[in-house]
């Protein structure tokens, strides 16, 4: 019985993230549209786009190779595996002993890498430019993420995400400690950078020279493009979900029960809707920063993460 709940939880996480990711993007676009005085295309629009792209003609640009073909599927696959690992709905799943935060972060980085290689594989100026910029940002984001992980794992004594989440549920003071707050801020900036949102990258830009993520995928068409778009939507959902699991862990089922799972599902959806709305609203107020100002932003978040670790150590050492 409990095993069944566990498997259902894992399947639920994958399905919710998979089906919900386009909806979340649609929701965020809708919020933005309303704040800008527009009517908006509706929450379902990303799903319509995906449906159409899947039925379009697949195109292979001449001169590209296996890396270009494999990258979209790999991007989606890494994110799906990460979605199965992160305790979005339940901390008590058959895979929870493998749900290591470093593994999850690395899986996400693997997806970034695959897409960057695909960008270079086209051999066009834009593809190379996007790959170069993406890897520069990724290289600077990684330390921030790992240090935030470090800060979070100090009170829990482990990098296992379910253990961190369970610990935080039972001991909410961990989250409101300076270390918890600083790590939240650092990780939030890192998530913005990893998912290519404003102020790091503008997902709806049409100007090639200002692009980061979009420049890498200019050559994709049809079903491949559908996977790339789905991949980046999945990443956004997963990383926001991870953020909510780590810093607002309440509601996540800590034991194997159907009722707990149902509550977790509802609360997870609510958290994501709220986070998405906040992010979309923030994007209305922010402007994208210049490419060479991005490292300054990331260095700032890195500093926050260092502070988080330091305060976590010294404050917990003092008490």
């Amino acid at each position, binding site marked *: 019985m409990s095993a069944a709940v566990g498997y259902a939880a894992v399947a639920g996480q994958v399905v919710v993230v998979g089906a919900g990711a386009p909806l979340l993007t649609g929701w965020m676009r809708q919020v933005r549209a309303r704040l800008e005085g527009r009517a908006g295309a509706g929450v379902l629009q990303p799903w319509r786009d995906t449906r159409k792209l899947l*039925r379009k003609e697949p195109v292979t640009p*001449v001169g590209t*190779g296996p890396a270009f073909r494999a990258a979209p599927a790999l991007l989606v*696959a890494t994110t799906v595996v990460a979605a199965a690992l992160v305790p979005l709905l339940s901390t008590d799943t058959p895979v929870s002993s493998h749900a290591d935060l470093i593994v999850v972060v690395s899986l996400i980085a693997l997806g970034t890498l695959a897409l960057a290689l695909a960008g270079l594989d086209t051999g066009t100026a834009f593809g*190379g430019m996007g790959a170069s910029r993406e890897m520069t940002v990724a290289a600077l984001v990684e330390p921030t993420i790992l240090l935030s992980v470090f800060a979070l794992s100090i009170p829990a*004594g482990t990098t296992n995400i379910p253990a961190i989440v369970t610990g935080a549920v039972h001991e909410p003071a961990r989250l409101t400690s300076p270390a918890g707050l600083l790590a939240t801020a650092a990780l939030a900036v890192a998530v913005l950078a990893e998912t290519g949102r404003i102020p790091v990258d503008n997902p709806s830009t049409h100007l090639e020279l200002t692009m980061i993520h979009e420049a890498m995928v200019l050559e994709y068409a049809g079903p491949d493009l559908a996977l790339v778009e789905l991949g980046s939507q999945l990443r956004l959902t997963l990383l926001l979900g991870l953020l909510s699991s780590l810093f607002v862990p309440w509601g996540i089922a800590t034991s194997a029960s159907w009722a707990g799972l149902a509550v977790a599902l509802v609360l997870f959806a609510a958290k994501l809707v709220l986070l998405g709305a906040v992010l979309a609203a923030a994007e209305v107020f922010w402007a994208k920063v210049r490419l*060479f100002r991005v490292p300054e932003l990331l260095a700032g978040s890195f500093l926050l993460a260092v502070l988080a*670790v330091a305060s976590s150590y010294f404050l917990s050492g003092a008490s």
Partner: protein
Amino acid sequence: MSVIPAALAAAAVLAGAGALAGIVLPYRLRIPAVGVLTAGVGVGGGTAGVAALGGSGWAGTFPGVLPLAGAAAAVDALAGLFIAVAGAVVAAVAVYGIGYAAGHGPHGLGSRTAQAVLPPFALTLVLVPVAASVSTFLALWELMALGSLLLVLAEHRERASVRQAGVWYAVMTHLGLVLLLAGLALFAAGAGGETFTALRAGAHTVPPAVRGLVFVLVALAFTSKAGALPLHAWLPRAHPEAPSPVSALMSAAMVNLGIYGLVRTGLDLLGGGPAWWWLGLIAVGGTSAVYGILQAAMASDLKRLLAYSTSENMGLVLIGVGASGLFAAYGDRPLAALALCAALLHVVNHSAFKALLFCAAGSVLRSTGLRDLDRLGGLRSRMPVTAAFFAVAALGAVALPPGNGFISEWLLLQSLIHGLAVPGVAVAVVLPLSVALIALSAGIAAAAFVKALGVGFFARPRSDRAASAEEAPILMLAGMGLLGAACAALALVPGLLGGSLDRAVGATGLPGGGAVSGGGLEVRLTGISAALSPVWVVAALTVALMAAVGLPRLYGRRRRRVNARLWDCGGGAPTPRMAYTATSFAEPLQRVFDDVLAPEQDLDVTPVRESAYLVERVRFQRRVSDRIEHRLYEPVLRALNTAGQSARRLAGGSVHRYLGYGFAGLVFLLLALAVGW
């Protein structure tokens, strides 16, 4: 008679035969014969190493071999680990080397000298960890250095830069030898014996200040051999200029011995030490890791990139060794064992992927004659197998799952993260910084290897030579296949190494009590709730990949995939010159780290003769030089030069004056004897 001495003796005999074969046999027979015999040396060494890792040990003395002291040999699990790694690398690279040298003509690596030196060099790689006394160790160490020096110089007729690299390497490796000699002699004098057993027993009688001095001297020498800052300058010169199989041997087997020496003397013979030793080592490791990979990310020479990446990985290993010593100094011995375990596993992983990377780079170099990434490209269609091997190894090098480097870096991070339980402010400051440095180096490593793979092998050829590349011959592919299989095995079932690693760690006196266990399929840490199952990750990724490919097909209308020309913004077809090069790829990172790298920039505008406002020619040049080398070495070299110039005045050519020097020296000696002793 146990397996170990028999296997080592067999290796020695094969090496001798190989050297002989290299000298006497004609060119056609020379290369296969030497290659097979060298592979035999590797297999022999590997067998001995594996036997030692399996738990058997061996010790012996050979009174007649070296004058005065004789030679002492001993093999424990720690030595066994390095012997096994060296043996495996030698065996695979020897197979690769046959294909590499054949058809290259009887010069360079195929020459009589190089082929005669190769088997003994391989033997010294295997034998250095066997040494069990200071004199034996130093003798083998020097033989290894000389062998590698001769091999680095193999192509000196073809490029002047080889000779320059040779000079750098010769000077620096002997500087290291001098430091090592001083350190170990000091240690032996204090401990009252020069065999490792005597040193181990007498280490606690040496005064702390002397122990500290010994450690600093020895650590400088060993970190220099491992390619860590600040004595790293030989590495990015010698590794690219050596023939590729030699680069592979040096980068995957020789630099490891620096780590071996450090672990052996620091943790085993000296029996650990105060925290400042290890903090220093972590600092050296952390700086090397970040600086090395940053230079790698800037390099557009493929082999230079790989050489700097060696610096980075050895830096990571040094962080692990340093953390281990630090934890031991604060009394947390299980955690120290875990950190050392991570460091040793990273040595093994690095050897596997770096040997493969250098071999793949060698295939490219042999086929195209190019190391410059800016002129390569498009190799994936011309050299698919080589490109695939390079990709596998690069996945290991970027430390992401499912590559093999990920597992050791994960272990290293785990040991550092849990190290905060160890009391002490120094620990609290250093460990987060080390985690940050490891993470930063991992991030930049991703950029560096995306550049190497994406620019070098993907896209379209940027020069004619790259466009006419041909796949490497079968023996080279076979050698690379062995290394690729090793990478895959290390990535998928690292747990199999658990017992061996424990024994190797146990040989240093730390409790090896199952820091890594879990059988073949899983890595589980005792005492820390963390587990990693690479097989699980790979399986899940495969399933997800199939779903990602399959599910859209179910829904999508089956349309035929069509080919289309690249999107060129409607203009003419983009030429390869429009594609991003390695230099342009690295430019944003270079801007970010401008202050660290301090690139030299040179803009030269030539106006036409008639008017200063019309530009005839613009020349732009940018070079990222090794800043540490610039800042640290040049003043020293200048000072030496000045001293040498002024010393020339002493030797004016007058015989009277020389007789006078002799007389003065004698008088001084007699006075000293009369007054002092």
